[in-house]
């Protein structure tokens, strides 16, 4: 137990080093104090800002999503109203309904038609023609079935 076996490598490690030349010395300033706390605060602020930003963006996204869904519902309701109004207009324009309403109001069916030949154009003819071909004659509820409409 007392005998110690030393390897050649170990022997080299314990050998005293040869004296070196004295290094050049110079005067240095007092080391700058480390602002560890500031770094930590900045880090906390950055992380906090990132988290806040992420949460805010998520909240904004959620709010926008809710708003989009509300608008979507409003659009759907408007489309529903439009479709029902189109149907209602078509129903009110039905010749049968108009005839029935006219009879209820006391009107009577027209007698035999009499066709007139005008000797000259009426003053209002041009006005009527313009109205029919202008924007006033366009029914927004109807598709464009020809260039004239």
């Amino acid at each position: 137990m007392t005998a110690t076996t030393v390897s050649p490598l170990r022997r080299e490690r314990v050998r005293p080093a040869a004296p070196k030349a004295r290094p050049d010395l110079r005067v240095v300033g007092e080391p700058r104090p480390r602002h560890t706390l500031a770094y930590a605060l900045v880090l906390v602020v950055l992380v906090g800002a990132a988290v806040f930003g992420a949460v805010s963006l998520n909240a904004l996204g959620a709010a926008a999503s809710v708003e989009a869904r509300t608008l979507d519902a409003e659009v759907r309701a408007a489309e529903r109203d439009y479709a029902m109004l189109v149907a209602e207009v078509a129903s009110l324009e039905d010749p049968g309904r108009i005839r029935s309403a006219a009879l209820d109001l006391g009107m009577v069916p027209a007698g035999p038609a009499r066709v007139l030949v005008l000797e000259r154009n009426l003053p209002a003819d041009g006005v009527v023609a313009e109205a029919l071909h202008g924007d006033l004659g366009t029914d927004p509820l109807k598709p464009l079935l020809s260039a004239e409409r």
Partner: protein
Amino acid sequence: MTEQPRRRFIRAPRILSRSGEQVAVRRIRWLLGIYGLLIAIVFAQLISIQVVDADDYADRSLRQRERTIALPAVRGRIYDRDGDVLATSVDGATIYADPRAYRPGETADGTPVPAAAAASEVAATLAPIMDRDPAELEARLEQDAHFVYLGRQLDWSVGEQIDALDLPGVAVLREPKRIYPGSALAAQVVGFTGIDGDGLQGMEAQYDGILRGRPGTLLLERAPGGLDITSGIRELTPSTVGTDLVLTLDRDVQHAAEVAASSAVDGFDANAATVVVLEVATGDVLAMASSPGYDPNAREQDDQDAWRNRAITDVFEPGSTQKALTIAAAIEEGIVTADTTMEVPDQVRVASSTFRDLYPTDEPTMTVGDIMERSSNVGTIQIAQELGDQRLDHYLRAFGYGSPTGSGFPGEASGMLMPHEDWWSTARPPIAIGHGAADSLLQLAGSYATLANDGRSVAPRVIRGTIGDDGRLEPVAARGGQQVVSPTTARQVQQLLERVVSGDRGTGSLAAVPGYTAAGKTGTARKPATDGPGYSDEYVATFAGFAPAHDPEIVVAVMVDEPTPYYGGLVAAPIFREVMEAALIARRVAPDGSATTLPAAMDHARAQALADAEAAQASLDEDPPPHGPAGAPLTPTATETGD
């Protein structure tokens, strides 16, 4: 094998010889090894989940969260030629319920759950809103099922009322509902859809493929509670709206035709009446009316026989209306002209059959114009005898007999015209005068449109086009016609037909249209017996013609089934006049007939008003009422009386 005991013997002293520090180090190493192993296992599992099977787990997660909502497509509208809506879709409310809410149950762990509400109370609440029988609703709510419909495609306002009640177990679903704003207007042409939106009849069925559109989907993520995950997936595949269809019908003309057909059924106690109106230049069907009609919005209450578009599906023997075609063929073949004079006896015998005129004349000779004007059977048969089977058959087929018109309407009949090789010895005379052959009213109208179009065939069509994405009409290609008879022949026949209406002995005088010249032909034909060979005692009255006679724009064909009386000139001709007058005015066709000047019309109106006033005064003088409605005397004062 002999080494093992020796090694154990050697190691034992080594353990015994270790110090406590070495043992602790060794134990720590063992623990580190175990921890390392556990971490390796966890890490391996982590890799397995996050890398190897990541897609699988992601899919599983998504399947738990995502919901796909079907977005039904809005069915395309059907318009008339001017863009007036004939069929459209609106939101309807479908009411459904979970009957389990109305009977006590228990949870999975056996905890009893009372009924959320009494079915009778819920039914009593819903019945007045839905206009249903409470007992019927209660029976549905008490069914042993998880889902029952209480009502489908009700008005949306009904759904909103029920939704506001927040009844337990009852919910409202949005579902497209097809409505027909004009009710019975053009019902047999437009047709209708079923409860699931499938086209079942008429144009709704024929063009179901382009009207129905394509449904879309909305893919989104939902939390277990049913709330949408706002930051999750939201993929919208919008539904494609069905294509709008534009028919050639004119709503005003259609209404006039339906009123006329209905009045014919009522006025002549007829089985049915059918009217077809064609535009000569294009073959557009402006109206196709059948009476009795039905309301597609409430078709459950109507006879299914009324769903049929008789102008397309029903064939009948056209009777004398066909004489115009026979004579046109003879003129085209150079056998006769409009001015040819013929000896026309009271009767003519062909093989074993004898044919007579209904009203024989004392005049020994008649022109072809007279034959047409008086609708002479004998004269027409004599002309047909010159024409022969083959040429008569050829021209009738060229005018459209024996084949569908290709109007684009489902279930169109071809008519019946046997090949001339199969005609028996006495077949030619009856076929020449409109018996032994049958066609639909649309075919008859098409043949007259050919005569009106200077002999060039006109293919009737019901579809004008579709509405493109830009809201403009995309017209369907018009089918070209063929020259059946020359323009010269056609104009001769037009003049002959004008005599039928305006001639002194014309059978169609009641078809005269005020302000316009009209041309046409009456027809009266017995109906074939349904219980055996031969004919029955029932008749079909017809009239086909066009106006203005000198520049035809509109063709109207009328068929009245089993009227009383049964003559075409008495029954069908007045309907022709009524419908033709409405069509000419609706299509803004300039009058060419007996128009008057404004001063003359004013004089006439003034005289008429004066006569009416004098008659009214005379009536009051004879029997003056004591007091007016408010007790005032009815005698006019000096200021109220005019000159």
